[in-house]
């Protein structure tokens, strides 16, 4: 029992959130192993373990970062927030100009020498959320003031979203939504929030206008075709139909781990459509379980707010939870054909280096807050 005791001693903070992290990680390894089969055959001469090891390694590294982030006091994030943002903005700009194109989208930066690519928006998302949390708490006393409180918040929000949007509109929209929710919780005047929404729409229109002239930089065509697909095709595109077949194949209890058929037809069964594979292999129950895990996460973070209310920590945890949960729901909504196809991954579960790592870090930061909230009862 010493190991359990040890873990017990080591891992303070909300046990439920720890459990959510652990469960998501386990699901992730299982599903990724199953769904990369085809990829392995086509890219690695059938070495199915190659992806398993790579993903497990990344996940282990991510979980180590979770632990590190958990050990770090959350106030340090507040201090670091402006600097992180200052790093994130040029990085995004750099990505737009010189990023590597993968699947027709410039979202990635090659890290020199080690040959890994890095999705800058994943980093920027967290930086922005931390920054917004910090600003909301900092200006809490005069939060309804337009000039003093609102402007410092929305300028970076709009800037980051605009920089992400050309290559990755769904992340930008998600991020804008997360920030709006944070501002709502942080008591920013609803009037202003709608103003932000309006500004967002104006910015989007501007982007489309630019896209007409620079189609290589702004993926207007892709957005239009996806939305068109969604609106015009009640059964969904080929990809979405494959996802539906996968979900239907799963019935109550699924066809069992590793038995998915649809993984062969889904465009990226290990990332965008991972939920469909979960439903196929573990059934409706498996799918619902994943949804409930995310609801549970949000619920636990809500508890943090009730305990720690207006502190920066609570606000940051709330923002990060919103980020994770909204992204997860957006991903799942694609698979069940509630929204048009996006490129959002399912946090932690989907295979993908940067996404997994920053999701893990986000969990670590939430846990860091929960540790202190539990410790101090603040």
């Amino acid at each position: 029992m010493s190991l359990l005791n040890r873990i017990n001693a080591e891992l303070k903070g909300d046990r439920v959130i720890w459990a959510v992290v652990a469960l998501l990680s386990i699901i992730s390894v299982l599903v990724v192993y199953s769904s990369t089969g085809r990829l392995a055959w086509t890219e690695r001469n059938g070495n199915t373990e190659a992806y398993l090891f790579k993903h497990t390694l990344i996940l282990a590294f991510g979980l180590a970062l979770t632990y590190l982030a958990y050990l770090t006091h959350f106030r340090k994030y507040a201090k670091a927030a402006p600097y992180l943002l200052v790093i994130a903005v040029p990085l995004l700009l750099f990505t737009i100009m010189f990023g590597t194109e993968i699947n027709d989208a410039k979202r990635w930066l090659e890290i020199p020498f080690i040959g890994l690519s890095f999705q800058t928006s994943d980093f920027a998302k967290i930086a922005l959320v931390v920054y917004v949390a910090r600003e909301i708490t900092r200006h809490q006393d005069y939060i309804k003031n337009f000039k003093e409180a609102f402007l410092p918040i929305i300028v970076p929000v709009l800037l980051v979203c605009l920089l992400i949007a050309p290559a990755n509109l769904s992340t930008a929209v998600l991020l804008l939504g997360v920030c709006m929710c944070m501002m709502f919780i942080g008591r920013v005047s609803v009037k202003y929030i709608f103003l932000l929404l309006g500004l967002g729409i104006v910015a989007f229109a501007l982007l489309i206008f630019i896209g007409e002239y620079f189609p290589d930089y702004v993926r207007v065509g892709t957005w239009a075709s996806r939305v068109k697909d969604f609106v015009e095709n009640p059964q969904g595109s080929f990809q979405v139909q494959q996802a539906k077949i996968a979900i239907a194949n799963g019935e109550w209890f699924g066809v069992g781990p590793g038995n998915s058929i649809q993984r062969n037809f889904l465009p990226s069964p290990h990332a965008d459509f991972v939920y469909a594979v979960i439903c196929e292999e573990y059934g409706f129950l498996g799918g619902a379980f994943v949804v409930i895990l995310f609801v549970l996460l949000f619920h636990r973070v809500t508890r943090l707010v009730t305990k720690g209310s207006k502190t920066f920590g609570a606000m940051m945890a709330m923002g990060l939870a919103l980020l994770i949960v909204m992204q997860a729901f957006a991903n799942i909504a694609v698979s069940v054909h509630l929204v048009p196809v996006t490129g959002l991954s399912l946090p932690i579960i989907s295979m993908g280096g940067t996404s997994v790592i920053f999701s893990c870090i986000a969990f670590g930061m939430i846990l860091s807050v929960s540790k202190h909230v539990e410790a101090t009862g603040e």
Partner: protein
Amino acid sequence: MNVKNEVLYRVYFIFFLAVIPAALALIYKTAYINYVEGEYWRKKGKDTFVEKRSIEADRGDILAANGSLLATSIPFFDIYFDPNSTGMSEEDFNKNIDSLAYLITLYVDNTYTPGAYKDFLIQKRKDNARYVLIKKRATLSEKRFIEKFPLFRLGQMRGGFIAQQSSERVRPFGVLAQRTVGYIREGAKPVGLEAIYDQVLGGRPGVQEMFCVDKAKDIWLPLNSLTAVEPRRGDDLKTTLDINIQDVAQEALLRAVNYHNADWGTAIVMEVKTGAVKAMANLGRTEKGWWETFNHAVGTAIEPGSTFKLATIMAMLEDGYFDLNDTVSIENGRTRFYEEIMEDSSPYSARLDSITVKRAFEISSNVGLAKLAVQAYGQNNRKNKNQGAAQFISRLKEFNLHLSTGIEITGEAEPYIKEAYSAQHEWSGTTLPWMAIGYELRLTPLQILTFFNAVANGGELVKPYLVSEIQRDGKPLQTFKPVVVKRQIASKATISKAKELLEAVVERGTAEKLRHPDSLYRFAGKTGTAQIGYRKVNNKTLIKGYQASFVGYFPADNPMYSCIVVINNPRANGFYGSDVAGPVFREIADYCYVMAYQIHTAFNAQPPAPLPARQLPNNQNGYAPDMTYLLRELRLPYYGQANTDWGVLRVRSDSLVWENRQMAANVVPNVVGMGLRDALFLMENRGLKASVVGYGKVVRQSIKPGTRARGQTVQLYLD
């Protein structure tokens, strides 16, 4: 309300009014897809996108008797490129697209420049296209070449290379025996051997799980699966057809139908002993010229006319009515049966009245044969067992003329022989005389030939057949033996009389002009000139046209092949069987006779005549083993014995003498009298160079034999 509570309410607001409903919506939709629409999607998953699809097996070949391919399947490929194949990485695509575009424009499609093709492919990748046509109907070697292109060589998943195989049936000999070989084509009734042996040729299709990339274009890609069943190639058919005889038959027939401006023609060659069909040609008139449009040989039953007289006379001979030398009055070739007038078409008849039965057959007298038949079967008598015409019909049935041959081709027409006195068959008083000369009944050319073949075969009726073997990988799976349908269709005496009659037709009868002037070989047969499309108006017969035929066998003494030629409705240059069909028969027979080495005496069967001295090879110089081998094969006697590697043949008066010759090393050899091969061998082995002028054997060399060899160049003069 304090700040903390306000924040809390707002958090709960988000939780209960956004997160929980969103989660419920997701779960609800999952359940909805799973249960409400579940059946539909599961079915769709099974039916539409993954399917066990059959893979067509390669079809077996149809071979001629000597193994030549009459029909074979050649695979071809539609080659597509999937620029968004699941395994294709951006890196692979970018790295290879330039060279791929270059190679495609260089070797496959030069209507584009490499740059334009590259842009085209990049655009297709952007457009999420799943297959871009690279080449339609590529051959196997082209496909093998293209699949080695950069990117493509990474395979289907990673390189996006898709080759969809189909196969095409080709007949290397084109129109030759086309109708007999047959075809299976969509939207057409399958015919010929392809139809009958479809099961054998078709093989067993394989089964493979495949998934659909595009329903509209019906494009399926194989799924890696262990349950795949490999298709089994069809077996091959070896036919009895001899491609050379077929060629000659077709050529001769083509010339005849053209020359005589006919409607159609057919020619069949059959092996007498076995019934193996060696050739079956059918030519019909089409807008695009002559073509194998219909298998008349098997499928068209016609009134045979005079060729049927053989059956009539054989029936009467069997019943013992007369001898060949008995006489019959042919009334100058014109008589009357009831109200109907019968005339001979032979110009001889007008001057003749009382002639022998044999002569009547030779000149193909309608009146003669009809009168004999009416005498024999017109009323009941002892010889026809008081059966009258029924006895005639039952004789015809003994000759199996009422039965189809059962050859392995669909659509054989049934013979039509009336039952005696049958009202249903409209038997009348004139039926018997007209049946006697080949009207009021119908037979196919093959059925007539089968009957004549039985006569040639000494009375043994064999079934005509086309397929001798079913093979797999060149080894026989099933062998078809000749089938004897009837041991003896008539007595030996009758058969030999029938043969005598058929030979007489060629010797001095209607086919006399076909006879070989130099008596190279003799053949036997019967001409036929039948009226077609006739109708009777006011006691006059209006005729649409004629059908010329000739049927017989050769050589007459020891029949090897039987053959029938039928040409329908010749409009120009004559219409008699002997003028129209006969020459075709002769041409086929000549060829078959010349080619049938079994019936010729080999030139070296006897010891060769001694050759005069001037015909002997003097001064032949060369390699001893080769020379002695030739001398032995040519049976040329010689004196002396070859003891060295090289030697010379000298002529001494009228015999050959072998002289051994030593070829010393390091000196220029004597190569006069040698072929260039031997001469060069000797020269170059001694380090000498040879420069050659002329053709033939070496007659002179520029450096004297015996000179020390030091790498000189020796000029060789050949003549």
